[in-house]
């Protein structure tokens, strides 16, 4: 196995490197606030439903809960875990397959284990 080549970035490149990293980090923080917002919203929705607030019926709350959960998970995977970046083809493929089967199993358990 060949050793890693040491490559020294020029000051300009290094500068760019750091700036890019900072930008990415800003994006991450943004995504984090989005996640916190959705969490807050989810809990609020449920509390509202619990208190019987007008308009917060099951048919609204449940889909929204799942939508928010799915989006949050997407954000975690794609931003925090970098699945959107290059070189993540294999992780994507396996996580997707996992997600498909992982969806199928609970689905059958709530439909054909009914008694």
């Amino acid at each position, binding site marked *: 196995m060949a050793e*890693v080549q040491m490559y020294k970035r020029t000051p300009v490149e290094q500068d760019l490197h750091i700036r890019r990293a900072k930008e990415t980090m800003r994006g991450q923080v943004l995504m*984090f606030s989005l996640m916190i917002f959705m969490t807050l919203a989810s*809990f609020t929705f*449920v509390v509202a439903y619990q208190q019987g607030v007008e308009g917060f019926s099951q048919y609204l*709350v449940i889909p929204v809960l799942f939508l928010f*959960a799915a989006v949050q998970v997407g954000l975690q995977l794609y931003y925090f875990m970098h699945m959107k970046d290059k070189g993540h083809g294999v992780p994507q493929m*396996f996580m997707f397959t996992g997600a498909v089967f992982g969806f199928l*199993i609970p689905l059958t*358990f*709530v439909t054909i284990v009914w008694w």
Partner: protein
Amino acid sequence: MDLNKKFTPETWPEHPERATLEAKNKFVGFWLFLGGETILFATLFATYMALKNKGPSGFEFSTQELYELPLVFVMTLLLLTSSLTSVYAMYHMKNFNFKKMQLWLGITALLGLGFLSLELYEFSHYVKEGFTFSNSAFSSSFFTLVGTHGFHVAIGLVWVTLLLFRNAKRGLNLYNATKYYTFSLYWHFIDVVWVFIFTVVYLMGVIG
């Protein structure tokens, strides 16, 4: 691989976590492992969904009365925040800033510890109320699902603690960069699972 090779922020590679073949292997292997974990948790969730509120005749616990949202909310915030702090740690790792990386990981661990303590508190509270593991099918599936997640958190804590102490004197190198990185993947994955737990178990449970 040579552990003594000294890097500087300028020579530190763009993707230290997959700079060598070993690192690439660990990186891909860990992702595959997470793919498998997805199914593991899917099965646990499925079982929980099938067994929730099921107990022996005269069973008196139900999701609606059992769960306490404020506690869960605090736990959620702790874990979500710890996800962000570990992103910070990785940010500093990419910049070859070892001290700050360690610091942020330390914070991550503390947040995780907070989460775990609250979970233990929650569990002991349930047990005191009589909702023990062997109380019903519902309780078994609840404790197994949430407990498996908690167990993952505990493993993560042990893992990160070992990493922090083991490498404290040695600094970053290409050998342990992957370990740090896979830890952060793991930690995010735990968060992913928790998102489903608070949605499917607690929030849906309160709705009924």
